[in-house]
C-alpha cells in the first residue's frame, strides 16, 4: 500500500486545479462570437487565440460544453476518403490529433488501432481499390488485404462462408484511430480559456442581427451582444441557425444512433466497418464495444434511440462476431447528423458578410475536429477560407462542384 499516497491525501492546503474559470456575465461586445461549444467551436476558439492572437472571443452554447454531437459520435478517426480534397483534409486532421494530447496538456486517449472496411461484394472491392489508390497517391497508408491478411489483423472476425454475405477482402487503413471525445472538447475548452476565450454555457442564440447584409451581433437568451464576426458550429441545428441568419442550407437532419455493450476483455484491436452490412464496431479503452450503423430513414430532430435500429444492428454484427450473442447493450443514444447531398462538409463563407459556417458534418464530424477548428479559425481571422477548405464552400452546390464522398462514408446511409 503506498503510504505516501495516503499521507498526501490527508495533507491539507491543496485545491484541485480548476479546469475552467468561473462563469462570468456576457459583455456587450466581442470581436468574435462562436455559436456552439462543441469540439469544432472550441477548437476554432483555441486556434483563433493561439495562431491569430484573437482572444476576444465568446463561445456560446444553449446547453453545456461538448454536450451535443461531440459526445454522441463513435470517436473514429480516419482519412481513407475518396476525393483528393477529402483525403488531404482528413490527413491533416490525423496529424494534428497525433500531437494533441501534448499540445493541450490533456490526455485525449488517442489510440491508433488500424481501420478495416470490409467488402462483401465485388462492387465494394472495386470502390476500396479506388480508395486505396487515391490514398496512397496522397501519402495516406491504405492497402487492400485478402482473407489471410484479415485473419492476421482481426483473428476473431468470422471469415466463414456460411453467412449470407461472406467477406471477400478489406481496405486496411493503418492510421485509423479512436480517441476520447469529451477529452477533445474539454482539452480545447481549457486551453482556449487559458488564452482568454470566454465560454458561456446555457446561453442560447435566439437571433442573428444583421445590417446591410453584414452580421453585427447575436441575440441570446441572456441578452444581446455585438460582435465583429460570427462563426456557427452547431452540428444538428445548422439549418435552424442558418434560417435565423436568413439563408437556406442543402442539409437534412437525421438521427444517427449508436450503442455500447458491457465491458469485455480487450480482444478487438482494429476498428471494423462493413459498408455493405451497415455496421461498425470498435473496442474502447474501457473494453466496451462501441457500435454504430446507418442513419435513421427520415428527417428528425428527436434524439431518441429505437428498437428497430438495434435489431438491424444486432443481426449483421452477429454475422461478423457470432460469439457476441450473449453480450448485453449497456447504453444507447442518438446524435443529429446534418446530411449533405455529396456527403462532404460545408465550411467557409455564407451569403451574410462576416458570418462563417462550419456545418454539414453528417457522420464524419468528430474526426475533423482539430483541422476544422484550425482552418475555420484561419477563415475567421483573415476573412476568407484557406486553400485546403476552399473546395468545401457552401456555394459549391450552386456551381454543381460537389465532392462526392458517399463511397467512403463509413456505412451506407
Amino acid at each position, binding site marked *: 500500500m503506498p503510504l505516501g499516497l495516503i499521507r498526501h491525501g490527508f495533507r491539507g492546503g491543496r485545491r484541485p486545479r480548476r479546469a475552467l474559470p468561473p462563469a462570468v456575465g456576457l459583455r456587450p461586445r466581442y470581436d468574435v462570437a462562436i455559436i456552439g461549444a462543441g469540439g469544432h467551436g472550441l477548437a476554432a476558439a483555441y486556434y483563433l487565440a493561439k495562431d491569430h492572437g484573437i482572444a476576444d472571443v465568446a463561445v456560446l452554447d444553449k446547453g453545456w460544453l461538448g454536450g451535443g454531437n461531440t459526445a454522441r459520435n463513435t470517436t473514429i478517426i480516419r482519412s481513407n476518403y475518396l476525393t483528393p480534397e477529402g483525403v488531404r483534409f482528413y490527413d491533416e486532421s490525423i496529424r494534428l490529433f497525433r500531437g494533441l494530447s501534448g499540445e493541450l496538456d490533456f490526455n485525449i486517449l488517442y489510440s491508433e488501432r488500424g481501420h478495416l472496411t470490409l467488402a462483401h461484394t465485388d462492387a465494394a472491392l472495386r470502390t476500396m481499390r479506388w480508395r486505396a489508390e487515391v490514398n496512397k497517391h496522397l501519402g495516406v497508408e491504405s492497402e487492400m488485404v485478402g482473407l489471410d491478411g484479415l485473419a492476421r489483423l482481426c483473428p476473431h472476425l468470422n471469415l466463414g462462408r456460411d453467412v449470407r454475405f461472406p467477406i471477400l477482402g478489406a481496405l486496411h487503413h493503418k492510421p485509423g484511430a479512436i480517441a476520447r471525445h469529451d477529452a477533445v472538447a474539454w482539452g480545447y475548452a481549457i486551453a482556449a480559456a487559458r488564452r482568454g476565450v470566454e465560454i458561456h454555457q446555457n446561453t442560447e442564440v435566439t437571433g442573428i442581427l444583421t445590417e446591410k447584409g453584414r452580421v453585427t451581433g447575436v441575440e441570446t437568451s441572456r441578452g444581446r451582444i455585438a460582435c465583429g464576426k460570427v462563426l456557427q458550429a452547431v452540428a444538428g441545428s445548422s*439549418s435552424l441557425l442558418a434560417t435565423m441568419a436568413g439563408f*437556406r442550407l*442543402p442539409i437534412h*437532419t437525421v438521427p444517427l444512433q449508436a450503442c455500447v455493450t458491457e465491458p469485455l476483455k480487450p480482444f478487438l484491436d482494429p476498428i471494423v466497418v462493413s459498408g455493405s452490412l451497415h455496421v461498425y464496431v470498435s473496442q474502447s479503452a474501457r473494453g466496451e464495444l462501441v457500435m454504430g450503423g446507418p442513419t435513421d430513414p*427520415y*428527417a428528425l430532430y*428527436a434524439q431518441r434511440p429505437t428498437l*428497430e435500429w438495434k435489431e438491424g444492428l444486432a443481426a449483421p454484427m452477429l454475422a461478423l462476431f457470432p460469439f457476441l450473442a450473449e453480450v448485453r447493450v449497456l447504453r444507447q443514444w442518438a446524435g443529429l447528423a446534418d446530411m449533405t*447531398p455529396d456527403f462532404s462538409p460545408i465550411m467557409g463563407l455564407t451569403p451574410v458578410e462576416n458570418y462563417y459556417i462550419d456545418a454539414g458534418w453528417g457522420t464524419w464530424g468528430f474526426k475533423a475536429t482539430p483541422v476544422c477548428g484550425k482552418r475555420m479559425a484561419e477563415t475567421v481571422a483573415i476573412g476568407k477560407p484557406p486553400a485546403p477548405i476552399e473546395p468545401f464552400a457552401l456555394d459549391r452546390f*450552386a456551381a454543381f462542384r460537389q465532392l462526392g464522398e458517399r463511397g467512403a462514408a463509413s456505412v451506407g446511409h
Partner: protein
Amino acid sequence: MKILHCPLNGPRNISEFVCGGEVVEMPDPGAATDADWSDYVFGHENARGTVREWWFHVPTAYWFIAERDTGTDEILRTYPASEIFGRVPP
C-alpha cells in the same frame, strides 16, 4: 414498431415506407435563375416542427402526403396527394 397510416393501405409498419422529402413547388423552368434551380435541387427547409412531406408505400408503389412533427417524431396526418394538388380530371 412505429405505425404510419397509409391512405391506401391503412396502418402499416413505417419500415414499409420511404420518405420522399419536403413538398416543394418546382420553379418555372423558363423563368428560374441558376440560383433558383440549385436551391430547388439541393436546398432544404429542414424545419423543426410540423413539416409536409411526400411518402411512398414501397410494396404498393403508392405516393401520398404526410404531415409530421420533426421535433417529437409524431405523425400528425396522412392523406392522398390529390387533396393538395387537385383531383385528376375524369
